[in-house]
């Protein structure tokens, strides 16, 4: 007999069973994890340059966090093949979009992407074909509607495709922006310009739809305002900033205002692109300079070449051979008469030689087979970027472990076919991309495999806060440098419109310098000693020191501490700070 009470008692049990059934059904109904991957700007990439990497994860079925493994196969059946493997730190934990930047090596073969869980099980795979959309040289990128001569310059992207890290623009020759991008995209764009990028803002009188504090810093005009040109077109007007210029005159007024920002270039169209006739657009296209990637590879390699080879001298070894030969001859001659005395004398003599030359060849003379020169270039304006370059020369084929320090680390297991390629390294810094090219042997160590004897240079790009800030008061003719670096900069210069002066070493604090630079840049480099001359000469080729106020500071060229056995590692920090009006 069933009572109402009994049915009430069974109700929770029924509900529980129902919940379990529903949960079981929903789990079984849940599809396998799938990923959708996009590399490059609509697939447009350049070999040996970074490209944006976007991945959408659906129906994530992993229990914990997962990471992404990207394999790029190089070569073909007719020549040596190898695979470059990149691993994403464990960041994928649910459905969603993930983005970062990825170096592209040789996109002739499909790029394999896999989502791998903590147990090493592949949850989803994808293959990206880039053969048809690869470029050999950097290409123009268009954001927003633009008339045909410009639109035809390169692929266009949507707001979602604009990368968040500046080095993802590595393959871009010129970035054309004609529509307001999401505000979060501006820092990456500005940092890319600081590192040598070329930006054209095709806003015209619609500038105020774009306006932002970062853009104000990039703009070649101050006090922007809307005005009417003599030909009746609405245009963006303003005061040219020091170092900025106007060009492409049309209808009695300039169509373009441009200037250098950091190592890069910013231009703005003063009228709407649709209001400009095609011939003027063609003229604008040839006026815009191409982006040039800022690189310290040449400096790093030159400083590496200057490093002293650590080894015992040949003369010492020759002395040892001679002393051993003479000693043996002497004891043999003496031992002819008394054999045991000869043996004892030999033992004593060679023991003495062992001790003497053992002391001579102390640890300071241990042969170093790996020489590494790390340079960190910090370029600072309102935003900061850091480019770490590690050049190393290996005199033998070996595998070594390195401490996982903040300094630049070489990548691991360089494939043989990459011998002539520059290798990109991703540092596991919080501000940098989480990609790591390498293999951590232990939590604090990384393994480097040197596949062949020779020179290699690695790059690591990151964004950073501005540890130095240079404020210029043109009216009072002085500049104030606020420095928050922990290290002491021993070689420092203030450069004002192409003329420079050496300033005393600085450390953390605030320093006031008069704007009274007198020496020509060339003589400034010539007077510098050590690595400074080389570094300054190279920086002068990459930065427009002839315009504006700049501070250049170099740290001491210091050895790695603690010393690494069999390796000579040196590090140099270089700060290039662009002065901003107070």
């Amino acid at each position: 007999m069933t009572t109402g009470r009994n049915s009430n008692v069974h109700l929770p049990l029924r509900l529980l069973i129902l919940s379990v059934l529903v949960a079981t059904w929903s789990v079984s109904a849940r599809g396998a994890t799938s990923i959708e991957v996009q590399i490059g700007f609509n697939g447009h990439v350049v070999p040996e340059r970074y490209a944006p990497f976007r991945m959408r994860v659906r129906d994530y079925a992993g229990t914990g966090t997962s990471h992404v493994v990207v394999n790029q196969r190089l070569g073909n059946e007719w020549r040596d093949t190898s695979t470059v493997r990149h691993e994403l730190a464990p960041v994928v934990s649910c459905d969603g979009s993930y983005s970062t930047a990825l170096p592209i090596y040789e996109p002739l073969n499909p790029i394999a992407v896999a989502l791998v869980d903590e147990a090493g099980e592949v949850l989803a795979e994808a293959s990206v074909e880039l053969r048809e959309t690869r470029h050999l040289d950097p290409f123009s990128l268009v954001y927003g509607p633009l008339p045909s001569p410009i639109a035809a310059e390169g692929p266009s992207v949507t707001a979602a495709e604009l990368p968040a890290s500046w080095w993802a623009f590595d393959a871009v020759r010129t970035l054309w922006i004609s529509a307001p991008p999401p505000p979060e995209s501006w820092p990456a764009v500005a940092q890319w310009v600081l590192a040598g990028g070329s930006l054209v803002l095709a806003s015209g009188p619609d500038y105020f739809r774009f306006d932002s504090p970062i853009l104000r810093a990039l703009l070649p005009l101050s006090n922007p305002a809307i005005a009417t040109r003599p030909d009746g077109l609405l245009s963006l007007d303003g005061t040219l900033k020091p170092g900025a210029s106007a060009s492409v005159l049309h209808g009695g007024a300039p169509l373009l205002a441009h200037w250098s920002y950091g190592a890069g270039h910013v231009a703005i169209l003063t009228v709407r692109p649709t209001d400009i006739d095609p011939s003027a657009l063609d003229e604008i296209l040839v006026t815009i300079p191409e982006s040039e990637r800022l690189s310290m590879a040449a400096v790093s390699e030159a400083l590496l070449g200057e490093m002293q080879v650590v080894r015992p001298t040949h003369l010492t070894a020759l002395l040892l051979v001679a002393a051993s030969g003479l000693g043996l001859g002497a004891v043999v001659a003496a031992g002819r008469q008394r054999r045991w005395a000869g043996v004892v004398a030999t033992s004593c003599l060679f023991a003495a030689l062992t001790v003497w030359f053992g002391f001579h060849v102390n640890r300071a003379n241990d042969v170093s087979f790996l020489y590494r020169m790390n340079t960190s270039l910090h370029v600072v304006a309102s935003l900061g970027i850091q480019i770490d370059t590690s050049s190393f020369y290996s005199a033998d084929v070996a595998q070594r472990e390195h401490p996982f320090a903040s300094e630049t680390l070489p990548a691991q297991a360089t494939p043989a076919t990459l011998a002539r390629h520059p290798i990109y390294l991703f540092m596991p810094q919080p501000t940098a991309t989480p990609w790591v090219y390498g293999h951590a042997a232990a939590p604090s160590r990384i393994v480097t495999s040197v596949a062949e004897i020779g020179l290699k240079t690695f790059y690591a790009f990151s964004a950073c806060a501005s540890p130095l800030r240079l404020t210029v008061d043109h009216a009072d003719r002085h500049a104030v440098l606020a420095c928050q670096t922990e290290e002491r900069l021993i070689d420092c210069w203030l450069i004002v419109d192409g003329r420079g002066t050496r300033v005393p070493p600085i450390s953390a604090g605030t320093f006031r310098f008069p704007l009274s630079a007198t020496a020509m840049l060339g003589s400034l480099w010539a007077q510098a000693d050590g690595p400074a001359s080389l570094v300054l000469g190279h920086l002068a080729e990459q930065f427009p020191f002839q315009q504006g106020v700049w501070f250049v500071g170099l740290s001491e060229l210091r050895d790695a501490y603690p010393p690494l056995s069999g390796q000579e590692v040196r590090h140099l920090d270089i700060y290039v700070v662009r002065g901003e009006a107070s």
Partner: protein
Amino acid sequence: MTRSDSVLSSGAVQGYFLLLLACGAGLLFSIPTGSRVAQLMELRWSPSPLSFHLTYVTLVGLLGTFRGIAAAGWDRLKWRTLSKLLGHILFGQAILLPYMFFSRALLPGRELVVPLLIAYTMLVAFMLALVALRLSLWGAARRSHTFLLQYALVGLLFLVPWALGLVPGVPSTTALLSPIGATREIAGSAPAIELLIAFAFPSVMILVQLPRLRHLIRRHHAV
């Protein structure tokens, strides 16, 4: 038959001089040339730091063979002959000790390699000395010259297992039977199991030779 050879006899001393000079040349050769890294880059060639150690193990091995052949011609074959052979090899090692300490600079961070190499080379040289002695006695009994055979065997021992170890499909541990392969592994801080194999081979060979030599010594005394 000659009298038992002293380490300071003219025949032995010539061998030691050659050993000193050849190992000295190996030592000079293994030090990189160039005072700046740019010069190393220009040369595009750097001698292996193992050049000296390979020369050392090969020449001390040949010294063992050389003394083993000589021991067959000494007065009477006794157990003391073996200890004298060992003494000759030790003397060779002693005069190379300054070189070995100097060569520590070629293997930075690998402090144990030098004593391990000395111990290993000692075993290899003694093994080769015993084999040479046995072969010489075997040849003498048959009135045939074994000189070329001895050095051909040394060459085979040094080269064949090492070359086989490089062939795909052949276990790489085969190379450890060759003093060349073993030296490379010891200098490269090989794992303990590989070190064990490297040391086990000459040790076992010595232990195998000793009963045979005891038999020969007994027969020698009986004659």
